[in-house]
């Protein structure tokens, strides 16, 4: 994080001179299409969802059509296998499957003669103790910030993700945390990033936060998603695709996690 703060100071300094940002044309090569799989299974009923799509060229528009007709199953470590139904083009779901902590789940996707597999374990649930708002100073601005408080269980290996919704709209920013430096402690996560241009939180807004206890491999996916330039910013000298837990050469991830939600209305 400190590195990010440091790199974010660069534009601040540059502003003091005459930096300028401009949209430019770059001729990027066309690319062979690749499958993108985003699989999610939570401990809430009817949550199993797998999205299948493909990559597009940079110059194409941002409408990604789903891949239809795939055979998608999720099997639990107890031997049960559930087939997911295609409810929309490229969207596969099952209402019959509910994930359980401690169980390992395997995803299998077959399409166009290719098979992709992935597995993830739902960790034990760690309780989100509270969600509250503070006013924090960062880079010259006082901003309302959502805080999540929880108690990390002893022993390293827990990983978390937080998803923030402002008035029901999901925020794009990825918030992740593991217990590498905070093992066994009462932990506080501030849902903001240095130098970001997030939507400002105002009085009257409803903030909803989901806390996910995730598999360490999925943490690694999001970590490399953030550091590797997947979102297109170029601080990394060697941007690369996130490290996926899917075998067979697809992009994306398969996350099996617990889910807990809290809401707060800004005073």
């Amino acid at each position: 994080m400190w590195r990010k703060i440091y790199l974010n100071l660069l534009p601040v300094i540059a502003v003091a001179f005459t930096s300028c940002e401009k949209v430019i044309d770059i001729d990027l090569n066309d690319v062979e299409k690749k499958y993108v799989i985003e699989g999610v299974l939570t401990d809430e009923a009817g949550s199993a969802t797998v999205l299948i799509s493909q990559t597009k060229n940079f110059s194409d528009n941002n409408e990604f059509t789903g891949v239809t007709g795939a055979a998608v199953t999720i099997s639990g470590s107890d031997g049960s296998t559930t087939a997911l139904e295609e409810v929309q083009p490229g969207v596969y779901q099952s209402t019959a499957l509910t994930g359980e902590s401690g169980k390992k789940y395997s995803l299998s996707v077959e399409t166009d003669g290719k098979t992709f597999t992935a597995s993830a374990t739902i960790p034990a649930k760690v309780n989100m103790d509270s969600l509250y708002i503070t006013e924090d100073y960062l880079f010259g601005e006082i901003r309302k910030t959502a805080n999540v408080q929880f108690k990390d269980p002893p022993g390293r290996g827990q990983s978390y993700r937080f998803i923030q919704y402002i008035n029901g709209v999901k925020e794009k920013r990825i918030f992740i945390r593991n217990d590498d430096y905070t093992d066994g402690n009462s932990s506080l996560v501030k849902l903001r990033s240095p130098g970001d241009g997030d939507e400002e939180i105002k009085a009257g807004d409803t903030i909803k936060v989901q806390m996910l206890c995730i598999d360490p491999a999925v943490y690694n996916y999001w970590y490399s998603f953030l550091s590797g330039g997947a979102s297109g910013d170029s601080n990394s000298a060697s941007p690369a695709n996130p490290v996926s837990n899917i075998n067979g050469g697809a992009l994306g991830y398969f996350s099996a996690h617990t889910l807990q939600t809290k809401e707060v209305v800004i005073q």
Partner: protein
Amino acid sequence: MKQLFILWCMLGGLTGYAQEKFTISGTVKSKRTGETIIGASVRSGNAGTTSNEYGFFSLTLPKGNYLLEAGAVGMALHTQSIVLDKNLTLHISLEEEAKTLDNVTIVASSKSRSLSSPQMGIERLTTKEIKNIPVLLGERDVLKTVQLLPGVKSAGDGNSGFFVRGGAADQNLILLDEATVYNASHLLGFFSTFNSDAIKDVTVYKGGMPAQYGGRLSSVLDIKMNDGNNQDYSVSGGIGLISAKLNVEGPVQKDRSSFLVTGRRTYADMFLKLSNDSTLNRNTLYFYDLNAKLNYNFGDKDRLYVSGYFGKDVLKAGDTFGLDWGNATGTVRWNHIFSNKLFSNTSFIISNYNYNISIRSGANDFNIFSQIRDWNLKQEFQWYLTPRNNLRFGFNSVYHIIRPGEVRPANDQSSINLALLQRRYSWENGIYATNTWKASDKVNITYGLRITGFSILGEGDFFEVDGNGKVTDTMSYKKGEFVKTYINPEPRLAVSYQLNETSSVKASYVRNVQNLHLLSNSTTASPTDKWVASTNIIKPEISDQVAIGYYKNLWDNNYELTAEAYYKDMQNQVDYRDGADVFINSDAIESQLLFGKGRAYGLEWQFKKKTGKLTGWLSYTLSKTEKQINGINNGRWYNARQDRTHDLALVVSYQLSKKWSVSGNWIYYTGNAVTFPAGKYRVDDQVVFYYTERNGYRMPSYHRLDLGATWTLKQRKRFSSELTFSLYNAYGRENAYTISFRESEDDPNKTEAVRLALFKFIPSVSYNFKF
């Protein structure tokens, strides 16, 4: 054995024409300041030598009468007739070249590059040469001047980092009074740690490094500080747009001893404070440097130098974030002249680099500390063995302590645990011997060998890591236990052949070994980039470089043409796995790394005008740098980030009148190799980018014109001053600093590329004075 044989032949040859010979030895100094002069030529006819890094020279000639000539950059030629019928000690004082003459002559470098010396791939600069080159914000900077030389490339717009012959930024050995400087940049790399007011001499070795240097693959940048005026007190200083400097020097006892103290501090943050913009005025950002030196002559044979450098950057964002970093070096040196042919130097050196981060954010308050520290002992002898043999030998022993990262909670309420990465200890030893042999009037050969041993010491845990980066085994070592020792011989060979009076050809081979590696995975060098020592898994980096060159002096030595070609092969290069976390809370940093090889080759040309009202040079480099690492680009060879096909610099300085001089430089280079996305896809309800190939694209080509002017104000008896104006990027080229990709702000259904350009039309003025 072969060398011994050659030596025997030499000595044998000597007795063959036994003629009585005597030695002239002594030091070359500046008359005005008493500063010793490095690389001054002392010659009589065809026989000659150059002063060493402490100004010492030794020249052995047959008995007779001679007209001795001594000269150096910016100094008037000194001639003296001598009767050589016994050994002589001679202290030569050179006068500075007078500028008051009507026909102003400026010697931009020693008039003729040594055609006879086998040393190639070398560039030498004095602060006089740096002075007139226009720079960003008027801060004269040796590292930025070095970047204008062929084969040396800037790390980015306005950046003081540099790449030499395809090497990475960490493959440059940067020495300040012999002490290693681990991070030579201030303020996001825009300024170097070297305050040009304190510097005497800068020598860059791009290839053919002499055997006394070792430890880095690509280059040696050897910077020597001024010793301090031992004739008279002198104060000089400057006030510029972003910084002020002051230099005080003088004799402690005239002729015997002197001191020097130089300081510099930036005050850009004062402007930030004046700003109404709250994003700026609560931030702090400054750096300072302090150089100090003391030297003392104990009679004619002994001289002691104590010098030190201390610099620090401080950066704060309100109360929530703080980062400070800096180098500290200390050098104690003792010169002893055993005889008129044997010169000795003993150095004891400490180098330190560390950074501190403090984060204050409610319940997560913590500090991070990291440090690298060296204790270094060097002993060197220079033995002017015979008129045809100049032998140098010695050893170097360094103890490195690296503290990779220490996270400490700032208070009892902090949720952050104490996390101390293991300290890493290593002991680096080198012994070397090198001889420069004047084989004939036309052929000179330098041959030498350096043997380095790098011992990794306990205590600590070391690991075995499998192909996926998973730790498979942990081995624990006790305090002081040897984990592993790498021994590498590094042969060095250089030959010159003088074709005629004005031209020569040279060839060289050098092997270099590097045991300290910098892990940096961002486009901008960061103070938190991590130094790691070789381990059982991280092998010593090895490079083999061959080079050939052609050198020609033209038009009565007023112009010179240089062309060199090189090929460099590099082994055990370090790179990162996809998604690597260099700040991982684990001692097994190797789990994040990949290893492979590299190769670099190129052609370098320089055409230089050295004298007259108009001086300057045109340099051009055509080069290629590639890497091959299993796990990146399917193991294919690919362009290294610093690969640039063309690199051109034109540097011109013109003395208009006694009062005014103007200068300009124009730079052009091919953009760096860079990784751009090949496509895009949707994950987590957002558009993300898909990468297929590392460094498959190029940044747009870079070019820039800088202009400068110096106005020498009225000179009084003791007081002189000048105003320097500069305009950086005079035609406002928007050079891409970064290119990033995002969903279009105008049309969310599209994606776009965004170029960030930093510096455009940066004018500056600074005032310098001296009394």
